[in-house]
């Protein structure tokens, strides 16, 4: 459900599911955590293919940030429509900087 690559030292995790809801959040969290545990501290979560996230999906993203720890950071790229709206409504856009695309997010994080 997640593809990843490393760009300029930043882990880019692209979510391949259209929906991250309660049915998928546990696996989503497990996969994301496994990626983080390889030691990455700078992570960009690419949500450009995702059309819908519910509170379980958002909770999994928050859990991942806690796992990365205070010295790392987790930014979001490509959130649009309902997904972007959820981040703003819950004020989570204050926690996860929203970037238009992966390029912009990596540039900001690596630079």
């Amino acid at each position, binding site marked *: 459900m997640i593809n990843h690559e490393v760009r300029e030292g930043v882990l880019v995790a692209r979510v391949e599911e259209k929906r991250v809801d*309660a049915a998928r959040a546990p696996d989503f969290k497990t996969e994301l955590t496994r990626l983080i545990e390889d030691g990455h501290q700078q992570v960009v979560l690419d949500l450009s293919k995702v059309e819908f996230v519910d509170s379980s999906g958002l909770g*999994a993203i928050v859990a991942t940030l806690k796992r990365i720890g*205070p010295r790392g950071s987790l930014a979001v790229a490509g959130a649009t*429509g309902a997904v972007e709206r959820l981040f703003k409504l819950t004020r989570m856009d204050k*926690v996860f900087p929203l970037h238009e695309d992966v390029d912009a997010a990596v540039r900001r994080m690596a630079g």
Partner: protein
Amino acid sequence: MAGAVQLLVDSDLDTVALVARAVRAICSDRLSEEDLDAIELSLVEATTNVIKHGYNGRSGETLKIGVALHSDRVVIEVVDTAPPMDAAQLEQAGEERFDFDETNIESLPEGGMGLALIRMNMDEVEYVAQKRQNRLRMTKMFAKPSTS
């Protein structure tokens, strides 16, 4: 176009997406994308709660979703036959849930956001626990389209 549709599904987290897409499509003729997003999120949170908390994750139980389209509002009802939830949970839920200190990562919520999201996204939310069934009724008002 006014009308009402009832949907019956098994209490399975995998069917929540099907219901969400169906309800979104039923409402799609009249509402803005933003209103559709609000309705879809509320519906998903409500049905997920029934499956996870009401039925404790048991599949094979019934879940009924009613959609009634009126000229100025959509009424979504989620009906279940599980033990009722504590109505106070719903009354206390609201946007205060998201008054976190964003600099304190450990304090950020990982759950307990569903009821708050429902109340923030719908105009009216009512919970009625009857003898045999519980009914969460969520109403979304919308601007009448200017044409026709």
